[in-house]
């Protein structure tokens, strides 16, 4: 199958909420397993899922950016979009997922990486927060803006989560 015949799915991961990241990575890994070309573009709150530091830390350039970096945190403290209960719910949800033998968010991210999903970080959001590529996991393929994202996602489905 040539690249032009291959099905393509591109996901804009904006939300950064636990449940929405689960949805994004479930779609990404499931599609990749079915031989789709899959792109995930992390922007704004979505950047939290791909930071190297998985907990709250003063990351970024400048005092204000570091404060934002601390408040936003990393993948270990992404909130549930509803009923977050001061951060308890993602932990409870992860416990339930393990108990019911459902892939956790961590496992979904690992699966997406193992299946060669293309992970991109948003240049604009990173610039606002004073972040560099070094602040993110090494599996990030490229830091791109909207023009490159539109080019890379051309011809496929685009989903905003």
């Amino acid at each position, binding site marked *: 199958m040539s690249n032009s015949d291959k099905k393509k799915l591109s996901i804009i991961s904006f939300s950064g909420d636990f449940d929405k990241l689960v949805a994004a990575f*479930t779609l990404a*890994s*499931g599609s*990749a*397993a*079915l*031989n789709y070309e899959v792109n995930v573009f992390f922007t704004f709150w979505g950047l939290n899922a791909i930071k190297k530091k998985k907990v709250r830390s003063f990351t970024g350039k400048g005092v204000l950016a570091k404060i934002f970096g601390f408040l936003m945190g990393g993948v270990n403290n992404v909130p549930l979009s509803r009923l977050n209960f001061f951060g308890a719910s993602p932990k409870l949800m992860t416990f339930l997922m393990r108990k019911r033998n*459902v*892939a956790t968010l961590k496992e*979904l991210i690992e*699966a997406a990486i*193992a*299946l060669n999903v293309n992970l991109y970080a948003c240049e604009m959001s990173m610039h606002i927060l004073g972040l560099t590529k070094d602040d993110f996991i090494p599996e990030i393929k490229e830091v791109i803006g909207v023009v490159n994202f539109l080019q890379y996602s051309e011809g496929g489905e685009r989903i905003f989560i």
Partner: protein
Amino acid sequence: MTFVKTKIELSKLQGGDRLEVLLIEGEPLQNVPRSATEQGFKVLEVSHVKDNIHKITIEK
């Protein structure tokens, strides 16, 4: 997710190697053999283990 995990394990194997997958009835049992076949893998056997657990043997 069952097929995702299956696909990841299959990617680690050499041609001719076999993978046994334990899965439950319903959506996984319907989808994993079909998706494996569609992607060119050989489903050698589908058998019932116990209760609602089944075993599929796939050859790469």
